[in-house]
């Protein structure tokens, strides 16, 4: 049985260790915050905050306090604020231990595409290019295939890249995969998901 969104987020949370500073992307990665448990994790929001707290209670939204997904949030007793230049200084400078991001495509060499579909969807890379270039460990959380059932783990990305050779680990609804020499390595599969099923739905070389 493939993992649902929350199960994928919970699995991604296992990647995080005590004391880590972590950046979570928009979408499923945002849910990871719900599963860190007792671990001492500090969340960075690249618009200028370390120590991101949960969503505010109704009526307590502050327009001056949002995350990188533009959602209202709250602060914690460890929080600090800073400007965007400093924020990306720490990102590029390798101070963030892990980034958990969504993706449109990942290639077997770790190339990542998650910022545009030419002629169709133009959103922009936001902070993703800086994150993948600077952060120590890049974990991608994504559906294993698109809605048409086509593979999103490819031999080579077809969409414009966000970064080259930057992805370390991929968590999909079907399992967990590491980018290694020669292709992707299956670390584990979701319950009742077989390696054959994974191979059938993956274009990338599985080693």
């Amino acid at each position, binding site marked *: 049985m493939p993992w649902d969104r929350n199960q994928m987020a919970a699995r991604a949370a296992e990647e995080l260790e005590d004391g880590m500073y972590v950046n979570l992307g928009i979408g499923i990665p945002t849910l990871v915050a719900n599963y860190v448990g007792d671990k001492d994790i500090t969340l960075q*929001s*690249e618009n*200028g905050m370390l120590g991101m707290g949960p969503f505010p209670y109704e009526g307590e939204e502050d327009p*001056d306090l949002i995350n990188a997904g533009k959602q209202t949030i709250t602060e914690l007793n460890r929080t600090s604020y800073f*400007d965007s230049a400093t924020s*990306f200084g720490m990102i590029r400078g390798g101070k963030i231990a892990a980034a958990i991001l969504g993706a449109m495509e990942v290639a077997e060499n770790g190339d990542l595409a998650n910022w545009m579909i030419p002629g169709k969807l*133009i959103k922009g890379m*936001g902070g993703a290019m800086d994150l993948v270039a*600077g952060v120590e460990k890049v974990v991608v959380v994504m559906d294993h295939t698109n809605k048409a059932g086509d593979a999103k783990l490819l031999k080579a990305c077809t969409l414009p890249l966000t970064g*080259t050779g930057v992805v370390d680990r991929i968590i999909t609804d079907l399992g967990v995969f590491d980018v290694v020499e020669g292709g992707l390595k299956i670390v584990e599969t979701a319950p009742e998901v077989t390696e054959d099923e994974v191979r059938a739905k993956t274009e990338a070389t599985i080693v």
Partner: protein
Amino acid sequence: MKKVFATADEALDGILHDGMLIAAGGFGLCGIPELLIDALVKSGVKDLTVASNNAGVDGFGLGKLLETKQIKKMMSSYVGENAEFMRQYLAGELELEFNPQGTLAERMRAGGSGIAGFYTKTGYGTQIGEGKEVKVFPTGPQGQPEHYILEEGIFADLAIVKAWKADDTGNLVFRKTARNFNPPAAMCGKICVVEVEEIVPRGTLDPDHIHLPGIFVHRIIQGEHEKRIEKVTTRSREDA
């Protein structure tokens, strides 16, 4: 040298010209110079190039300057919230130079800091790196070579910025994540105009806690801000 002006119109008087490059603070709709954007709409200045992380939303923030077609080109990292933007871009009516968010912030800081260019790994091997100079530095964990691309400082004709408080010498304090791009945008403007929620007397801001010194600020106005929230997201009290 009086820096305090009565209105946004007066604060922009005499410093606008068609085709100018404007750096704008703000992230999404948070910490955006809403009053100065309205004054730019009113001024009718056109063919603008605007360096700003986002382009507002339809009908608010920089979205207003897109509707009036006063913007010729945007330099941004993310424009996903703005349908009119997407329409103009796909129709070829608007130029768009994508900048990774950190590159955009650093280019602003660089321009304001006399740094003409800098080398970043961000964007190497992607569309963003195409046509840009590549240089290898031995910055890997054991001194291995890594690839960097050259990005240039942004030297804007005008910076428009939103802060929380100012004193009359232009010392600025920002509030929470509304700080974002405002300090680097302010730094890179030949002229920097700032709107604040409150102008306070000299000596009431703690000199250790001024986020942007007045030397970067040329004109200041105080005004009422709508501070629209883009995505109200809450938890219910029962979750607690």
